[in-house]
């Protein structure tokens, strides 16, 4: 018998039991939809982070503390890395040939208050170079200057969204705000930049001099008692200088930190490309993990299909007997039921892709409303995987019922019921 005849028999039998077919497919639709939406959302997050990082400029190296006792990249995890970089390290790096500027930067969350308005924001304690390195333009006033840093002034530069949310139409310049209950004077407002990092807008920040940050806001000391720096951004003269500068930074810090030969470094030098790679890896792992959880739904759906196919085989025992009596072979019956199961899950999978796509649009919409701009994006690979997975589910859950049908003895099947 021809494949297409099996196909048309299978499809007709699915149509003759519409309600049941749709209910069975619902499991696949929801399962595939959830997986698709999660993968699309994950890809959207990855795109957002990547484009934000690329926007920061690529001729930049970041020096970060590392816990030398931790395996692999885990040593770089914030809070685990330990405090061992200092402003003196930063100044030493600044003297390396080929280095245009350094931006030692500490970062944290703060509460910022003006009048009756209070909001949460990311605070960056840094130097004048932070503006260049992070590609910020000024909307008004000035950025943090070397003088501010040298004299630990209580001055703050506001991100555009922060300024708007705190001051509305009022001019923030010269106003006093409270950051974690300490008074700061607004000296500048940044222009809108766009982009976000893990849901935090690049325009919802405040910048203060790093020295002020260390002494007035968050005090963290290295084991030798100096004020700690969380990371040092290094602006390199050009791509061809990258390798030299990287080597020089390493030599300088090994000497300054008195690291013995053969011991692991307590710092890491990461380029923007590497950062992008690390973040893609993180978002990739997270979305695969979530998709794996969501695919438990697919397992349940496949059990549903198997269940319905078994019921269907029992119900249609007589039909199978008739078909066998008029000449159907085992493989004809096997094929008929396998195709039926595969068709159920393929159609379900296709509907699931549409459902997942709608779901990811909803995620984009809601996250944008909530202030975390995220453009969920569905890739052809995801669609291909979803179709493949539903086909495999259909065949896997259909094979046992189909074999039961094919093995029925025509006599038993005809005299059944």
């Amino acid at each position: 018998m021809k494949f297409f005849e099996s196909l048309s028999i299978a499809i007709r039998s699915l149509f003759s039991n519409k309600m049941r077919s749709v209910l069975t497919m619902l499991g696949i639709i929801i399962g595939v939809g959830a997986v698709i939406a999660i993968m699309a959302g994950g890809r959207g997050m990855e795109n957002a982070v990547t484009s934000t990082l690329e926007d920061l400029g690529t001729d930049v190296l970041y020096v970060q503390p590392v816990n030398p006792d931790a395996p692999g990249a885990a040593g770089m995890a914030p809070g685990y890395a330990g405090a061992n970089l200092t402003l003196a390290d930063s100044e030493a790096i600044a003297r390396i040939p080929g280095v245009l500027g350094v931006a030692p930067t500490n970062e944290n969350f703060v509460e910022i208050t003006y009048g009756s308005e209070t909001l949460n924001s990311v605070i960056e304690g840094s130097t004048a170079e932070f503006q260049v390195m992070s590609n910020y333009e000024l909307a008004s006033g000035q950025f943090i200057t070397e003088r501010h840093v040298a004299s630990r002034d209580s001055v703050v530069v506001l991100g555009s969204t922060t300024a708007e949310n705190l001051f509305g139409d009022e001019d923030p310049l010269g106003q006093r705000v409270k950051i974690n209950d300490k008074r700061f004077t607004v000296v500048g407002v940044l222009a809108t930049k766009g982009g976000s990092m893990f849901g935090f807008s690049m325009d919802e920040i405040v910048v203060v001099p790093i020295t002020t940050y260390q002494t007035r806001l968050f005090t963290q000391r290295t084991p030798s008692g100096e004020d700690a720096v969380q990371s040092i951004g290094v602006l390199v003269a050009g791509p061809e200088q990258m390798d030299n500068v990287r080597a020089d930074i390493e030599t300088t810090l090994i000497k300054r930190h008195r690291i013995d030969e053969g011991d692991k470094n307590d710092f890491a030098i990461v380029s923007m490309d590497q950062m992008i790679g690390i973040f893609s890896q993180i978002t990739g792992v997270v979305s695969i993990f979530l998709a794996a959880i969501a695919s438990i739904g697919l397992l349940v759906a496949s059990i549903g299909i198997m269940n319905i196919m078994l019921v269907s085989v029992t119900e249609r025992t007589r039909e199978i007997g008739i078909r066998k009596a008029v000449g159907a072979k085992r493989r004809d019956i096997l094929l008929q039921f396998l195709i039926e199961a595969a068709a159920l899950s393929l159609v379900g999978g296709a509907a699931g892709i549409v459902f997942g796509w709608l779901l990811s649009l909803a995620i984009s919409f809601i996250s944008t409303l909530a202030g975390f701009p995220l453009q969920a994006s569905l890739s052809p690979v995801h669609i291909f995987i979803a179709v493949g997975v539903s086909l495999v589910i259909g065949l896997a859950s259909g094979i046992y019922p189909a074999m039961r049908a094919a093995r029925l003895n025509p006599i038993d099947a005809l005299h059944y019921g």
Partner: protein
Amino acid sequence: MEMIELENVTKIYRMGEVEVYALNGVTISIKQGEMLSIVGTSGSGKSTLLDVLGCLDRPTSGKYFLDGVDVSRLNDNRLAELRSKKFGFVFQDFNLLTRASALANVELPLVYSGGRYKHIKAMEALERVGLGKRAKHKPTELSGGEQQRVAIARALVNSPSLILADEPTGNLDSASSEEIIAIFQQLHKEGITVAIVTHEADIAAKTQRVIRLHDGKVASDGKAGSQ
């Protein structure tokens, strides 16, 4: 030449500890073009004999020669091919696919045997049983007699050498029964071998040969009315 020869065929069903001899040493032969009936009380093994003859079931022991070939040990696929090419079945409760039209039911054997012009062959078969105008109707829209005629058309469509009917009039009123028997007689005249299992004496009387089974054995075999 004999078309069918059964040699000492037994069929044993095991029911728990008990072995039931549905057929117990049946030896018969059937010639091409015969019309015969198989009669007996219920439990005498007449339906089992029909199943074995139609290769729906294998004998437990003994030999079954079909056109000189021993088919009692063929595998499932070869038996399916034989059913599709050599035999046509007609059952007491019609055994039609209820959701398919009369035409689709008649086409069913052609779906499995392959070949072209399914619609044309199926329509021809329906016309032979006088149902050409009811081809698009579903079995539920047809009377019992009409349904049985669809079943006969389905049995005919692959031009079988033997039509096997198991109580074909058991669910029909007498008028419909006569129609059905008339169709079988017509097919017999056209040269098709017909075997009918029945417990109705007047139907058996219309066949040239009557095989009477008792407890799985052939009790008598001869001309109608000669027992």
